[in-house]
């Protein structure tokens, strides 16, 4: 097991800035190993990839493809060519919506869940204009996916199932392996949004058995602007290209074009090589800690915070998501007092905040005064917020450099704030 205090020392920002950084579901800090990998690439090997015959370009190509191999291995792919580099999870899901969308017809159904991030809702809504229908599997009282409800919504019009592996609001961990096997049995294309999973637990895409799996580098110690779309070789093969341009072609004439093989087919234009190189260094860092340990670490923090919640009984504090930490990632969404739901219609003279309630913006601002960084808002999950009857929440989310002392600081600050404003 690793020591989060030791880990923290690898992160220049965390020692330079006096901050308890608890916004890790949004994005994570970078260890010096990642920063150095990017600098090394700029200072010693920078060049364009794939088509250069000169030494620098060969080095860059080699680094880019080795990064692909390394990251592919990290997420359990047998074959590095099953990993497409994309900008982020959002791009991966849009790629899928565009490419798979061309196969769909009016009346076809896409099955999502009520806990999805906007990135796994809006791209599919684009297809509604052609008569495609979106359905949402319900959640249970405790904030877990209601698998029975999901299964009951599968029918012969269901063509795509796309679910998050871990919710970025509730932290709920979904049984994606089981879900993908339902999908397979019913001839449904299965997609997993792994943005909140790959950074926080061991993930083996081949084992999950999904057709496609998406994740973002910046949420797992890597640079921004790089992420992965992993897939079954045959599923990727069948997918029509998303963007056209350099690298992704085999031949182009004025009349028509033929395309390169996977993964290049989906990597039009000059790629973010430093992003790939940096993400590969991030993967090495995480591998050294051990993803099982990372998961355990966050589970411990989560248990600690839930225990403190019970012990401290902070006035009006309410938090969301499953209480059983074995089904929950390190995400803690909460409010102080009742928050009204987001609605433009139901304003009334006494619609100001209920007594004792503190708006999540004010909570975040007060925490910030105390050097603690949390997020407040809808967390790109407005529909889920609506379902919870809330306009917004505050959210603390943890990672490898957060320790119990961070949680303690956070909770005692909350206590103070709950008495204050």
């Amino acid at each position, binding site marked *: 097991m690793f020591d989060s205090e030791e880990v923290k020392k690898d992160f220049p920002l965390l020692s330079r800035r006096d901050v308890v950084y608890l916004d890790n579901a949004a994005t994570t800090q970078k260890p010096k190993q990642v920063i150095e990998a990017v600098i090394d690439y700029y200072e010693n090997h920078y060049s364009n990839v794939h088509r250069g015959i000169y030494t620098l370009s060969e080095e860059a190509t080699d680094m880019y493809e080795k990064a692909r191999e390394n990251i592919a291995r990290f997420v359990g792919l047998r074959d590095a060519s099953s990993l497409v580099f994309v900008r982020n999870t959002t791009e991966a899901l849009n790629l899928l919506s565009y490419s798979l969308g061309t196969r769909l017809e009016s009346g076809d159904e896409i099955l999502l869940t009520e806990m999805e991030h906007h990135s796994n809702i809006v791209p599919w809504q684009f297809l509604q204009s052609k008569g495609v229908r979106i359905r949402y599997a319900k959640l249970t009282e405790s904030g877990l996916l209601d698998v029975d409800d999901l299964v009951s919504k599968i029918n012969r019009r269901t063509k795509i199932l796309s679910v998050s592996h871990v919710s970025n609001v509730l932290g709920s961990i979904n049984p994606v392996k089981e879900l993908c096997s339902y999908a397979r049995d019913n001839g449904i294309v299965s997609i997993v949004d792994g943005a909140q999973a790959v950074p926080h637990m061991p993930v083996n895409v081949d084992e999950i058995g999904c057709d496609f799996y998406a994740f973002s580098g910046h949420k797992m110690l890597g640079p921004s602007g790089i992420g992965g779309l992993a897939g079954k070789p045959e599923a990727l093969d069948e997918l029509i290209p998303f963007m056209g341009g350099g690298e992704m072609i085999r031949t182009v004439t004025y009349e028509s074009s033929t395309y390169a093989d996977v993964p290049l087919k989906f990597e039009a234009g000059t790629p973010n090589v430093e992003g790939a190189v940096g993400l590969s260094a991030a993967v090495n860092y995480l591998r050294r800690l051990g993803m099982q340990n990372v998961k355990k670490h966050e589970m411990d923090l989560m248990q600690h915070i839930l225990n403190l919640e019970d012990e401290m009984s902070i006035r009006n504090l309410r938090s969301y998501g499953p209480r059983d930490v074995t089904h929950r990632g390190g995400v803690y969404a909460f409010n102080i007092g009742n*928050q*009204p*739901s*987001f*609605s*433009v219609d139901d*304003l*009334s*003279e006494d*619609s*100001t*905040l209920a007594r004792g309630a503190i*708006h*999540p*913006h*004010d909570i975040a*601002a007060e925490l*910030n*005064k105390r050097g603690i960084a949390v997020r*407040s*808002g*809808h967390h790109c999950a*407005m529909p889920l*917020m609506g379902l919870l009857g*809330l*306009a*917004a929440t505050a959210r603390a989310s943890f990672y490898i450099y957060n320790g119990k002392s961070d949680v303690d600081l956070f909770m005692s600050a909350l206590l103070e704030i709950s008495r204050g*404003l």
Partner: protein
Amino acid sequence: MNVGNEGFEEMILDHYRNPRNYGRIEHPTSAITEYNPVCGDALHFTVNIRNSRIEDIKFIGRGCSVSMAAASILTERVKGMEIHEVEQIREEVFLKSLGIYLGPVREKCALLSLNALKKIAGGKRDES
């Protein structure tokens, strides 16, 4: 709110706890609801405009300390103003008058009310 001047911070908190001009005008000449989807804040203004002048203004709403206080402060300021004067209130100037550094996100909270009033003023202009 962030690093700021204590006095101004007091002012914000005071307006947040005791918003001025809170409520609805019965038969307003204009009304508008403005909202910030990021945090769910919503403000509803009812206004009486006569001879291009804001005779009365009230608001109801829900929001964080900054959006509520800014709305309250703004209603006090614009009462009696010509609508073209409201249109000319510059965002930077209004923000500065609040006296505390807000940062980019909370600036949006503070500007919610100003945006609403500018829309009302612009609308009235168009009609005349």
